[in-house]
């Protein structure tokens, strides 16, 4: 069965406090990523930076439907998932700069943030590389009867990898509590997904009998509602789900991907920014529902800006790992 999420099915049981928390989380990701962009362009951040700007509603909508001890796996574009699951910006910035204070002692970097304390099994720089890991975590949850759910985030590029289908087949056979969240931001690096993806996407999951849903990935309320449904369902032992979230990557594939007109137009980008910004639209809704006024939201923004500034300063000042760290943790 594949269904498109009913847009009216959004608000039940969610109070003002939680709505504001979602706003705060989305804005935290946006500001974190703007700081990453800044650090990268100032040459303070080595390597690559893949920004999540524009897709914040998915990570937040899904993770707010999870328990603290539920598992997530993430991708090369993973900062948003890690933050939404509870990671500290301070320790994330430190990791992004390769500092010893970072989540992985500086040895993972932007594409490999992992944190057992928040159920984060790790961001993965192989496309679809964490599908097996998330499915295996769901097998543990089921076997050990912990009631946990595992969420596997990936982009639509992962739809091209066979291991995704191997694991969905296993998950449905064994009724595992795993949720495959496909963020279709329309571009697999520099190629429109229509050039790489045949047929209907959710039908691929539905063919295995996996519950398949499609949702507007720019609408945090809609994402949260459907994620709550499928997470509860998985927790009840009713099996895996596939959630297709339609979204847009506001920036390039990575920070250095500046001239993008050979694969997408400025007009298209401007249209998404103007009409479908997940944070702007959610802020308007919060105001229209009298959940918050402009002043209250602006206070949240200022608090987050101050937190990010402090976190960046901490990371920039933090020491690199010592040379003796290089061969530590190869084996447990």
């Amino acid at each position, binding site marked *: 069965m594949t269904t498109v999420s009913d847009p009216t099915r959004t608000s039940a049981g969610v109070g003002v406090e939680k709505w504001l928390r979602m706003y705060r989380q989305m804005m935290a990701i946006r500001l974190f990523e703007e700081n990453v962009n800044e650090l990268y362009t100032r040459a303070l951040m080595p390597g690559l930076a893949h920004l999540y700007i524009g897709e914040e509603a998915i990570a937040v909508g899904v993770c707010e439907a999870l328990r603290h001890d539920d598992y997530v796996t993430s991708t090369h574009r993973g900062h948003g998932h890690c933050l939404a699951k509870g990671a500290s910006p301070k320790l994330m910035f430190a990791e992004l700069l390769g500092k010893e204070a970072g989540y992985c002692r500086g040895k993972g970097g932007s594409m490999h943030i992992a*944190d057992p304390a928040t159920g984060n099994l790790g961001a993965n720089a192989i496309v679809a590389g964490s599908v097996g890991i998330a499915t295996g975590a769901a097998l543990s949850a089921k076997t050990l009867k912990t009631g946990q759910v595992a969420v596997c985030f990936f982009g639509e590029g992962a739809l091209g990898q066979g291991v995704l289908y191997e694991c969905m087949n296993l998950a449905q056979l064994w009724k595992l509590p795993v949720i495959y969240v496909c963020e279709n931001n329309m571009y697999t690096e520099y190629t429109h997904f229509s050039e790489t993806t045949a047929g209907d996407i959710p039908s691929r999951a539905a063919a295995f009998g996996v519950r398949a849903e499609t949702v507007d990935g720019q609408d945090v309320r809609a994402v949260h509602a459907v994620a709550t449904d499928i997470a509860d369902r998985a927790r009840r032992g009713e099996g895996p789900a596939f959630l297709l979230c339609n979204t847009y990557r506001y920036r390039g594939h990575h920070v250095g991907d500046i001239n993008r007109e050979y694969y997408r137009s400025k007009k298209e980008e401007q249209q998404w920014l103007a009409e479908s910004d997940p944070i702007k639209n959610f802020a308007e809704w919060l105001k229209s529902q009298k959940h918050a006024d402009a002043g209250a939201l602006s206070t949240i923004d200022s608090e987050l800006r101050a937190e990010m500034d402090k976190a960046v300063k901490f990371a920039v000042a933090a020491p690199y790992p010592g040379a003796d760290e290089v061969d530590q943790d190869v084996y447990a």
Partner: protein
Amino acid sequence: MPETGIREITFAEAVREALAEEMRRDSRVFIMGEDVAEAGTPFKVLSGLVEEFGTSRVVDTPISEAGFTGVGVGAAMTGLRPVVDIMFGDFITLTMDQMANQAAKVHYMSGGKWNVPMVMRTTLGAARRSAAQHSQSLHAWFSHIPGLKVVLPSTPYDAKGLLKSAIRDDNPVIFFEDKMSFKLKGPVPEAEYTIPLGVADVKRIGTDITLVGTSSMVQVALEAAVMLEQAGISAEVVDPRTTWPLDEHTLIESVKKTSRAIVIDEGYGRYGVAAEIAATIAEGAFHYLDGPVKRMGAMHVPIPFSPPLEDLTVPTGKTVFDTAMTLCGRS
């Protein structure tokens, strides 16, 4: 080495006993793979386990090596201790991303926060007339990757003790079993024992030449040693038992004593395990050597089907004997 005068069981029985004992000891241990349950694998190594432990701990999977290996990695990270069964060693190629990019790197990339206590059991070895895609010995692939451990048991005693250690290890361990050894009998004590990973075993003591053999090639080296003895040459046979961790000390000390060495491994000789061990000996015992360290491995060809051709591709007691005679200046 086990004491003499104790019961003898086959290599396959030793593997099965190790699995059963570890599954009784630790409820987190489970087996997952193709035809592992009622079928007990095509080699019948696992026969009887599903009857004792049930289908939730001896789990048949679809033919999805990458998928269920990845599931093993995730399960290992989150509280279980999977033993993933890859029916033929040739099929590890399908699992390479899960093993080399995921299992091997999770611990390091996470700064030591996540562990992958998983065992992959698979096979190696030619000589079954199974042709190019069911006969390879690809243990060098895993030995090349930091974060993995690789075990190559050659006797029933070693198979049991090493497999128990592999299951208790908190790292991903690949356990290669020679298909031709499953029926090999040897002494295995009934009492509990384990063998640490990274400790070589001297299978035969000698003074004139060191034959380093791995897995299936240990029996070949022992066969050659008997022939050499008849020719008046005393050969020492050293079995590293694990390619990583590698017991460099035992290998080097043996060659310091004998001054000559041949490394025999059923993987491809070029860029392989034999090459690495030969280099280790050359670096560590250079000034003691009376001749070049020789490598003997599979011929650099896909394994052919036709029996007389297949038999040419792997070292035998005779070819090792001939090489040793030349190295000792006796041919």
